[in-house]
């Protein structure tokens, strides 16, 4: 079997992978993207659809700010806005401690040029009369919004292919290796080789990193999501809360999309399922925010599989063991908004050898200093040998 040569191999066809293919192809770089299932079939396609900067880990804000610029240009970039709408993101506090959290975040946002408007208890009920009495304050990010997660990855993939990227669905990768000059990747009957490999495989990115001796403690995360029948449109902003145990938005078509808690999954199949208990729990939390939703019919629930890291921020950047390997995975349930910028960053790292976005906090070897994790790994190794 002769290997198909290319410049860059991308493993994983979610938002990050498809955006990488698009940015590389736009710069004339040949690339092949291998997706095990369908484009956007896991975390990128089944998430809540929040396009949110507010509330992010400070390290993520520079990425989120730059990603937000790309979101604004989506129609030029991919020919559709993916139903992105700047609705504002209203983060709510349900008690004094949560309100203090919102206030503390104002400085972080300011330091990153993210405009926020703090809204006190009286004003918030005047402006949003449908909010429940337990809401004591809120912080509005006027530039944030939401989009349709089912549309983003396919739109990026189509645009990438139009620019010459080779996008292959139903192409599960069986082996990845590096032979000191290039990467060799097998998928079914096919073999591919390239100087560069981009790992955007979500939860499964952990296994690819492990192949190159870069163990990352990544675990599967399945957000528990629900959607209601359409109702007259009244909830304009995308709603969140301090602590993130419920998030809720209404689309113009009228459906209310909300989520919180976790479903279950088996990444080996892969399969994932929402669960009744978190669904009931998040129903109650949704009613606390918007009592008017009592009795409204839920028509579907769903989940998918994302990768979660112990410090809740992704791995982004060059491999520490293998030249030419770049990672962007483990987005821990908040990667949808970042997807578009990941492509820009990856293409810069590969083509220019550098990027302006500070990636230090996302280093893949940051967990190596974590002693308990190392011990766990050794135990795991020992049991494997046993």
């Amino acid at each position, binding site marked *: 079997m002769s290997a198909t040569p290319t410049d860059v191999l991308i493993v994983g066809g979610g938002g990050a992978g498809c955006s990488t293919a698009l940015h590389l192809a736009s710069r004339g770089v040949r690339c092949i993207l291998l997706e095990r299932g369908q484009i956007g079939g896991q975390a990128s396609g089944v998430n809540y659809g929040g396009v949110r900067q507010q509330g992010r880990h400070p390290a993520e804000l520079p990425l989120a700010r730059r990603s937000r610029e790309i979101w604004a240009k989506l129609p030029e970039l991919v020919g559709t806005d993916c139903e992105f709408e700047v609705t504002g993101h209203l983060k709510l506090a349900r008690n004094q401690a949560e309100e203090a959290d919102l206030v503390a975040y104002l400085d972080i946002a300011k330091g990153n040029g993210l405009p926020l408007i703090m809204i006190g208890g009286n004003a918030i009920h005047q402006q949003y009369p449908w909010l429940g009495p337990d809401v004591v304050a809120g912080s509005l990010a006027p530039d944030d919004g939401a989009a349709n997660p089912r549309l983003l990855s396919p739109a990026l993939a189509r645009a990438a292919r139009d620019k010459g990227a080779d996008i292959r669905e139903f192409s599960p990768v069986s082996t990845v290796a590096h032979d000191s000059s290039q990467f060799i990747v097998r998928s079914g009957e096919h073999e591919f080789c390239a100087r560069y490999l981009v790992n955007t495989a979500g939860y499964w990115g952990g296994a690819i990193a492990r192949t190159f001796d870069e163990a990352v403690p990544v675990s599967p995360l399945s957000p528990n999501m629900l959607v209601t029948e359409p109702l007259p449109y009244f909830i304009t902003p995308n709603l969140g809360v301090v602590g993130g145990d419920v998030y809720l938005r209404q689309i113009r078509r009228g459906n209310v999309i909300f989520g919180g808690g976790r479903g279950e999954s088996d990444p080996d199949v892969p399969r994932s399922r929402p669960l009744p208990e978190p669904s009931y729990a998040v129903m*109650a939390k949704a009613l606390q925010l918007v009592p008017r939703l009592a009795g409204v019919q839920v*028509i579907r629930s769903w989940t998918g599989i994302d990768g979660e890291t112990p410090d809740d921020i992704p791995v982004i950047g060059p491999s520490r063991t293998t030249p030419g390997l770049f990672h962007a995975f483990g987005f821990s349930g908040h990667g949808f908004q970042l997807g578009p910028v990941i492509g820009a960053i990856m293409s810069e790292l590969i083509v220019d050898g550098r990027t302006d976005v500070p990636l230090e906090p996302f280093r893949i070897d940051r967990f190596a200093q974590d002693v308990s994790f190392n011990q766990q790994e050794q135990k795991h190794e020992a049991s494997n040998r046993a």
Partner: protein
Amino acid sequence: MSVVIVGAGPAGTRAAEVLVGAGLRPIVIDEAPDSGGRIYQRQPAGFHRTARALYGFEAPKAQAIHDSFDRLRPAIDFRPRSLAWNLRSGVVDTICDGKASAVPFEQTILCTGAMDRVIPLPGWTLPGVFTLGGSQISLKAQGCAIGAQVAFVGTGPLLYLVAYQYARAGAQVAAVLDTTPFTTKARQAFGLMHGGATFAKGLYYIAWLRAHGIPLAEGVTPLAIEGNRQVESVSWRDARGTRREAAVDAVAVGWGLKPEAQLADLAGVPFDFDPVQHNWVPRQEPTGRTSVEGVFLAGDGSGIRGADLAEAAGARAAWAVVAARGLPVDASAVARLDATLTAGASFRAALERAFPFPAKLAADMTDDTILCRCEAITVGDLRAAANEASATLAPSEVNRAKALTRVGMGRCQGRVCGAAAAEVLAATLSCPVEQVGRLRGQPPVKPIPILPAEAA
């Protein structure tokens, strides 16, 4: 740990009977206020029509099922008004009167029944359009006709039965429009003879309708249902190609039935496409046992076989549960049931062939026809998505079509439009319909209310 039966129709009733006989106390869950299922649905409290008036020729069977269930009540844990909205390993999740419960089981027999198979046509979203099954329930359970001047459009035994029931009840039946040509049915005559009484009754309904001057047409192509604010007329092309029209205030449509197998799907039971039924059917052994530990199937929810065989299949699946629990099995009863099920199979196949699902009619719908009524997606929308030049990222199967076009994303989750949507997609991609797959089941299998904390 208990046995949970989902569905108290003919299959569920006979299943419960066998389990009680074996000394078990099954939990029986049904959405409806009482037992009987859709086929033998009971009238609401305070209604006092006779069984004969409600069920016609089927009155003795309906009565027998109701009487059996009534006898069982003290020996079972019956939970009416309970929607089984989710199924996971060893648990059925239900909501009853706004209160949620998780019902654990060691074995479950899913007797989830069927619903009408529909092919959209222009105007089918107008008020006054019902499914055949829906129009029958309206008459049977509440003594209401869907209109004063009704047309019946579709194919299958139910088409003639419901038209007959409406005419008997005093509604004006404007036309009975069967999309199956006479010759197709005639070719199955020999196989249909095996149906004995069932076949004879079918012939009787048709003869009765003819004798009463009700216009019957075979081999028709429905064109449109029209009206400003509600149904005013229906038009079709007859077998000769002549355009015809009838003034009506209601239309009932239906092209056979499809299993309501969402719970089996959630349980992880694999599905196969049955070319004779033209349905996706959950895979099961002749006993009703599936490859999923503890999950058994019976009745039309496990493949369309009709009410009589549903009774036998329910009892048979219950014996399989009894065996699985290591309790003594009545071998002669099992042998009789197996014989009944085997004998019934050939008649059923002939019946399906006599009234085939007109896949071409679904595939040939006009671009501007609303395909998915919940989300207001047209046939043209789906075709455009499937035709996208970027071949590999265009929908190649129904779940992606759903993700990209919203077909099947609404209140009914594709239960109404799924069959027709698959035909449109397959025709556009020029592939057999089984190749575009089936919509994956997702909880809740039917809508559930947002519940307050104290209800969970």
